[in-house]
């Protein structure tokens, strides 16, 4: 270490340039990237001076200073999911997507790991696998590469990114609205540490590897949100008879009303309401209604049908917060 003799010029500068010989740049062309000058390249500097001491213009060169560019270890991880990923209790193969970028200036491999128990959420997703994308950005266990620590750490060129899929199982005990966070961590195989730490001789091109501003490891969090729905059925009956009373006498008509209420942030699919016609009563043909709209008894385009023993109304997919009302009538034998 030494103090540099830095000072200003002693002599006044010409207002404009005089014609002199130029030296071609001696520095080798080096590709400058966002991640910086490639590790292992050499920065060479040479200056020249031209002057006239009476015998005509002369040009001399300075000494050449060569600096080796060390490898900077930097990596960032970004969650690629714009919002929490919906999941359901007990679901397997739930996928979070991340992007890992080598911000260093040399080729580097990165160790991947996950953290699911850091808190700040309602439950811990169970990470089952990490996959490395084949380049199409879409998770497919058949074509993407299963990551095995110590075996196939992804190798990234400077500025290169790779998509990583974290596959998890949602515990069966979670309830609607629960949130589960998983963080992906990527760490340089060469080493991690505080910015400025260096690993002698381990850089690309023979120089040192120096920990950059990211600490040579990166992390980002993605989250699942449990989006479940529950169905509540409420059945009621109203009796009418020819006497104008509510007495269930033979010949009286019973109107059944079944209200299906779906609650939660998710939705239920394939929801159907089935009700057997009680003994000693007879179904009133063509009496099924859904939301006040009459349904035919045949299995056809509309949602309702009667098969001789029960009525059935197929509601399909119903989102949380919605209700469906089904009615039908019977007469007391």
């Amino acid at each position: 270490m030494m103090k540099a003799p830095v000072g200003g010029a002693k002599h006044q500068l010409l207002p404009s340039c005089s014609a002199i010989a130029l030296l071609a740049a001696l520095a080798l062309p080096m590709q400058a990237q966002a991640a910086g000058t490639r590790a292992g390249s050499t920065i060479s500097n040479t200056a020249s001076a031209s002057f006239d001491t009476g015998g005509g213009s002369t040009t001399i060169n300075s000494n050449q200073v060569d600096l080796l560019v060390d490898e900077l270890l930097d990596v960032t991880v970004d969650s690629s999911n714009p919002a929490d990923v919906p999941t359901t209790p007990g679901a397997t193969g739930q996928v979070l997507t991340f992007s890992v970028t080598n911000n260093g200036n040399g080729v580097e491999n990165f160790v991947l790991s996950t953290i699911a128990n850091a808190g700040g959420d309602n439950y811990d997703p169970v990470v089952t696998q990490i996959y490395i994308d084949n380049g199409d950005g879409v998770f497919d266990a058949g074509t993407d590469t299963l990551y095995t620590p110590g075996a196939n750490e992804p190798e990234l060129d400077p500025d290169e990114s790779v998509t990583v899929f974290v596959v998890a199982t949602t515990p069966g005990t979670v309830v609607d609205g629960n949130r589960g966070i998983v963080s992906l961590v990527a760490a340089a195989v060469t080493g991690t540490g505080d910015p400025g730490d260096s690993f002698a001789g381990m850089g690309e091109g023979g120089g040192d590897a120096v920990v950059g501003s990211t600490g040579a490891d990166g992390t980002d969090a993605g989250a699942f949100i449990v989006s479940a729905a529950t169905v509540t059925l409420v059945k009621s009956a109203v009796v009418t008879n020819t006497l104008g009373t509510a007495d269930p006498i033979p010949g009286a008509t019973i109107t059944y009303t079944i209200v299906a209420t779906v609650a939660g942030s998710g939705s239920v699919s394939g929801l159907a309401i089935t009700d057997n016609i009680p003994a000693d009563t007879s179904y009133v043909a063509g009496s099924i209604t859904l939301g006040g709209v009459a349904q035919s008894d045949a299995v056809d385009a509309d949602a309702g049908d009667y098969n001789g023993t029960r009525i059935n109304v197929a509601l399909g997919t119903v989102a949380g917060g919605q209700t469906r009302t089904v009615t039908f009538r019977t007469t007391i034998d």
Partner: protein
Amino acid sequence: MRTALFLLFAALLPGQALAANQVALANDVFVERVSTDAQGKQRILLEEPKVVVPGDRLVFVLNYRNAGAQPADKFVITNPLPAAVRFADAGDSRPLVSIDGGRGWGQLDQLTVTMADGTRRAAQPDDVTHIRWAFQKPIPAGASGKLMFRGVVK
């Protein structure tokens, strides 16, 4: 006596290119490293690096000396900027710069760059390819001086 002086200068300025006409130009590159002492005060140290990393701030120092018997007239120092270095500043010495590989020269704030769509924008330090100091007066015999500029490893 002149030989003795000459040798002394050579010792003071390691790596100096020695020319037959006894005008010499030495080039040193330092890296600015910021360290924080126990009291939390930041100190900027200049080190002679063997290795650098992207983002390092470099200080280029040029020492010139006219060790000959005649004044050196039309004295011009030119430093092509290494491709991996982004020009930062040259203190208050206001050098001429080139942004086109040494064809045109001017003060940085007077140069413009033609964009792909034909419009022009003011030149930025990023555009600088060469730095030049052109001296108005001859360098007297025995005189010396220093120039510096800063750059950042891309």
